[in-house]
């Protein structure tokens, strides 16, 4: 928590100081008020006091109240500024940090968790600041100050007040102890509830097909019971809180009166009056003490949740980046050349290598393809080029320069990367294709149209209601998987890269479209180099070079014809998809 507060700006810190001063002042005023109250009470009680005296005391009290109002409003102003400012800055810091993450970090944290950390967790901290800051300063000051005012005045009455405080503290400790672990359980059960429901929703066809409605309801029922039980326990525990608080407050009041009365009976004439006035003071300050303890426990209620959030935020902010930016910004005389020199790769904390000693070179205008079973490392291999990961050993060179030396943006300007899963932004078709920055001007509409045409998307885009200005829905739900892939390829084309990287980017296309797209692309980008990962033999068999991977090792390199002859694994893959006769025909 404190670590997180290191992110407070100097301005924020000044604001905290102001808030603290004002809070202390308002506590002073708040504690003054009962004195005026008892003065007024006394004046009203005495028959001979004049109206002027009463108005005078009343005026003082009102002045106090107004000052206190002004104080708290100012505090409110500053603390709302503080919490909003702090959360804004933290949110920005997290966002910027996540933007600089590599795939490794994203995988480690999970996208969904990163999202909740940037939003919900920050909101938790914000809540703590906006509600808690005042309370955190106010309640101890108030409690101590009020205690000082009454302590030493009467042992017996102090004891009564003390008992009240002790009961409240014990009750709250009990409640916190009961409730805190159950809160995290609720979180878990909510996840499960969501899980079971999501499962039912996504598998709705299967559920119906297996007549498993009852079965699913049963699964839901189990979690529903668990979550209800836990909720019930929590609420039953909380149901104790209010009655006990009221009970303690009232009985403390009454107790002070009764004990006071007993003391009065025993006391001498003079002491009686002193005891009575002590009694009145005790009952009003005792109330303040109890209130401040109540406030304190409220902080303890939000604190654990905020602490968890702070921890989760710090985890992001403190994460070491696995990909460090380089400095090389200059031009290269060679273009479109990618070379791997004895490249090996393993995940930082893994034992096993995913890629072992891979070497190849591809020249400008050539196409290189990678094929192999899942887990053979082909995706990982091409991800090393745009530095989504860094090679553990060996070198990856683009245009003769090690990728680690490039400034990331310079490197990215050379590359058109099309990931396995086509990703669409919630924006128009045009903006989706013109996305990003390649160090030159943004592609204009003509360029966008051309790119879409090459990517075989012209037909469907022009059938859409607003054509190129049609908005793509969140997650691209209003277009099909194949259409997404085509737009995603168009996005790379619009960038005019030296090197295309297709990470299994044709999988959702039917053979026909796949073929046409690749033919058109070839025509359009004569000088560009293509690196293709694919599952389908048909997609890759025309490549200049095919690299066959198996368990991270290169088991064959050559053209389709060569590999069919010399590489068993390649032949096996090919035969699983096409018959011998078909392969011959091809």
């Amino acid at each position, binding site marked *: 928590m404190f670590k997180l507060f290191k992110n407070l700006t100097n301005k924020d810190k000044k604001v905290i100081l102001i808030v603290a001063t004002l809070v202390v002042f308002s506590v002073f005023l708040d504690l003054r008020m009962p004195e005026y109250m008892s003065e007024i009470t006394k004046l009203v009680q005495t028959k001979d006091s004049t109206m002027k005296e009463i108005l005078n005391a009343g005026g003082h009290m009102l002045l106090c109240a107004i000052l206190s109002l002004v104080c708290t409003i100012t505090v409110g102003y500053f603390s709302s500024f503080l919490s909003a400012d702090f959360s804004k800055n933290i949110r920005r810091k997290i966002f910027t940090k996540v933007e600089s993450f590599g795939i490794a970090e994203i995988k480690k944290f999970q996208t969904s968790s990163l999202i909740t950390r940037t*939003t919900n967790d920050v909101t938790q901290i914000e809540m703590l600041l906006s509600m808690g800051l005042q309370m955190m300063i106010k309640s101890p000051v108030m409690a101590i100050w009020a205690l000082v005012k009454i302590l030493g005045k009467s042992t017996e009455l102090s004891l009564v007040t003390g008992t009240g405080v002790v009961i409240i503290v014990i009750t709250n400790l009990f409640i916190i102890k009961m409730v805190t672990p159950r809160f995290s359980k609720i979180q878990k059960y909510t996840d499960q509830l969501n899980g079971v429901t999501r499962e039912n929703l*996504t598998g709705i066809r299967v559920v119906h097909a297996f007549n498993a409605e009852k079965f699913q309801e049963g699964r839901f029922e189990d979690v529903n019971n668990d979550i209800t039980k836990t909720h019930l326990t929590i609420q039953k525990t909380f149901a104790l809180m209010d009655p006990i608080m009221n009970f303690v407050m009232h009985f403390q009041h009454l107790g002070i009166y009764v004990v006071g009365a007993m003391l009065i009976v025993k006391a001498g004439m003079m002491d009686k009056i002193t005891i009575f006035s002590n009694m009145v003071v005790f009952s009003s300050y005792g109330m303040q003490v109890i209130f401040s303890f109540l406030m304190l426990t409220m902080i303890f209620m939000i604190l654990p949740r905020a602490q968890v959030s702070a921890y989760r935020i710090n985890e992001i902010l403190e994460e070491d980046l696995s990909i460090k930016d380089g400095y090389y910004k200059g031009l290269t005389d060679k273009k479109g050349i990618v070379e791997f020199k004895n490249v090996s790769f393993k995940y930082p904390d893994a034992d096993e290598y995913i890629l072992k000693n891979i070497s190849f070179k591809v020249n400008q205008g050539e196409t290189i393809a990678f094929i192999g079973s899942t887990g053979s490392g082909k995706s990982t291999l091409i991800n090393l080029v745009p530095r989504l990961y860094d090679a553990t050993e060996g070198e990856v060179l683009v245009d003769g320069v090690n990728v680690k030396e490039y400034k990331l943006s310079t490197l990215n300007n050379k590359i058109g990367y099309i990931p396995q899963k086509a990703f669409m932004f919630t924006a128009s078709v045009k903006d989706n294709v013109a996305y990003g920055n390649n160090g030159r001007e943004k592609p204009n509409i003509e360029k966008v149209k051309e790119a879409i045409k090459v990517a075989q998307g012209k037909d469907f885009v022009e059938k859409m209601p607003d054509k190129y200005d049609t908005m793509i829905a969140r997650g691209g739900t209003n277009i099909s998987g194949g259409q997404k892939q085509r737009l995603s390829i168009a996005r790379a084309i619009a960038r005019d890269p030296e090197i295309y990287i297709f990470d299994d980017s044709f999988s959702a296309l039917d053979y026909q479209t796949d073929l046409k797209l690749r033919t058109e692309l070839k025509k359009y980008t004569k000088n560009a180099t293509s690196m293709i990962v694919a599952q389908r033999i048909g997609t890759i068999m025309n490549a200049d070079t095919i690299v066959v991977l198996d368990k991270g090792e290169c088991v064959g390199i050559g053209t389709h014809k060569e590999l069919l002859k010399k590489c068993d694994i390649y032949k096996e893959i090919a035969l699983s998809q096409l018959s011998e006769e078909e392969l011959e025909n091809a």
Partner: protein
Amino acid sequence: MPRHNTEKSKDFKKTTIRLFKSLNNWKYLLIVSILLALFGAALSTIAPNKLSDVTNVIQDGIKPDTEKFKEVSENIIKNAMTNSIKNEIVLSNPNNIIESINNLDIDKKMLILPEIEINKIKVSTLDQISFMQTIETLNSETSLNKLNSLPESIKKIIEPKLDTKELEKRAMILAIIYLLSSIFGYCQGIIMAYVANGYSKRLRKDISVKINRLPLKYFDTHETGDVLSRITNDVDTIGINMSDNITSLVSNITLFLGSIIMMFVTNWIMALTAILSSVLGFFLSFLLLKRSQKYFVERQKVLGDINSHIEEIYSGHNIVKAYNGEKEALEEFDRINDKLYNCNRKSQFLSGIMQPIMHFIGNFGYVAVCVVGALLVMNDQTTFGTIVAFMIYIRLFTNPLSRIAQGMTTMQSIAAAGERVFEFMDEKELADESNLKEKLAVKDAKGNIEFKNVKFGYDENRTIIKDFSAKIKSGQKIAIVGPTGAGKTTMVNLLMKFYDINSGDIIIDGKSIKELKRSNIHELFVMVLQDTWLFDGTIYDNIKYNKKNISKDQVWEACKTVGIDHFIKTLPGGLDSNVGDNEAISSGQKQLITIARGMIEDAPFLILDEATSNVDTRTEELVQKAMDKLTEGKTSFIIAHRLSTIKNADLILVMDEGNIVEQGKHEELLKKKGFYANLYNSQFQK
């Protein structure tokens, strides 16, 4: 993103009434709890009266007893006057009896003022004299110091008597009131916890049951997240707020009204003072609440915006990076973040100053009541006790209002959430099938199926399957092919009666599917889809799924048939390994598990979606072998991607843009040189 509380409902009254009605039996408990809240609040309004009683008793106990004081002085003077000798002395200096007595010798003093007994307490001569000396210098104001220097015997007489019996009685009454109100409060809290949780549990259950009763069309047109948010966020909003809010609303309204009534009963002038002095404050705070509400709503919207932006950028992280989109993304983020900052600041500020303002109104009312009260006391129009009572009433009166205001907005959000839940519950369900009496048992089914002039469209206006007819005999293989998005799943939807056909008929072994219950049809089909659907459970659970009386051996048998037994044996838990987040199980292996699940089910028909795009080729081979095993002896519909399937098929349905554009055998279709031939040949072209 949780939906925030401030969401407004469209029809507050209607939804509230419906919420109440749908509580069913919980309704009565709710009423009990409302009654308890009512009693508790009523007790709280009486309590100040009783407390001022206690105060009065104690106060009486510290004032010196003026009656006794008079009695003492009268007694002593009478004592001094009754003797004849005394008369002389008194007469010698009639102006100052006390002085003349003082000047006497001690024995004379004793003669004049012999020891007397007042209230059974002996007062000696000296004490009497000292009393007389004291009261001589006593002015009208009873100076306590003077009284304190009185001789013990007299002090004992005039000393204030705290009426302990009375105090005990009054304190007891008050204690009982406090205790009762705490007990009421606790009972009420417990009851509400049961009501709220019981009710939200039922709502959740209703939603979960409803999910399986909705036509598939609903899920094809609605997002999963939407239903999820109803089951969690909305139900939580109802459950949590209901338990806190309803009774607190009731007790605060009672307190508010009660204190107004009590105030008017006690003294109408002061009641008016109290109300008038608070009116401005109330007005102000309602204004504030409305304003802050506006910002809260806006904040919720902006939070949604920033959430969407973050989600998009984070999930498209690799694209953002690879296309140098970071700056662009950050600019957009900053724009929304600034907006959020403004809403946050304003909403928090405005809602934060509500409390201090109410606090101030309380204090202001306090002073006003005291001043007006004092005026009235001076004119003998009221007593001090009334002022004391009013000092408490003014707090009772001002405190609940802000809570009532907050409570009303929470009620709004409960209604909004309720509306969303009810909206879902009101969705049209699948057609009722209880009137369908036909039944086709699995053992009687042979596997013939006939399509007769089937017409179908997802939209009423747009028919996509126009007049499709085909006769399929038991054990035949039907391949459905076509480019992406051609509507291949439509066939699955119709066969499984997920959607109803517009006209025509599908006849299974002589029985129209219109005559058969959906559950009956589902029994006849084994369905294995491309999206491997596994739930969070063990491999065994997933394969067995909802079927009963399936032994581990049978599951093993199925695993062996699809060829996944070796793999399962390598897992530490074997069949009992969890599939949920198990990274050791690849997507291909998951597909094998779903095929094994299909294996367990013995049915004459099969629907198989064989696309396996992201599965490695070797596993794919295994999967294909398993699928072939699965088709043995069954009439199968295969959404085909493999050439071998297509070539061997007894019937190929070629689909494009939702339509069946061609149908026939491989060879026939190739000869046609139409759409299919094109599609097929494209994979061999350079």
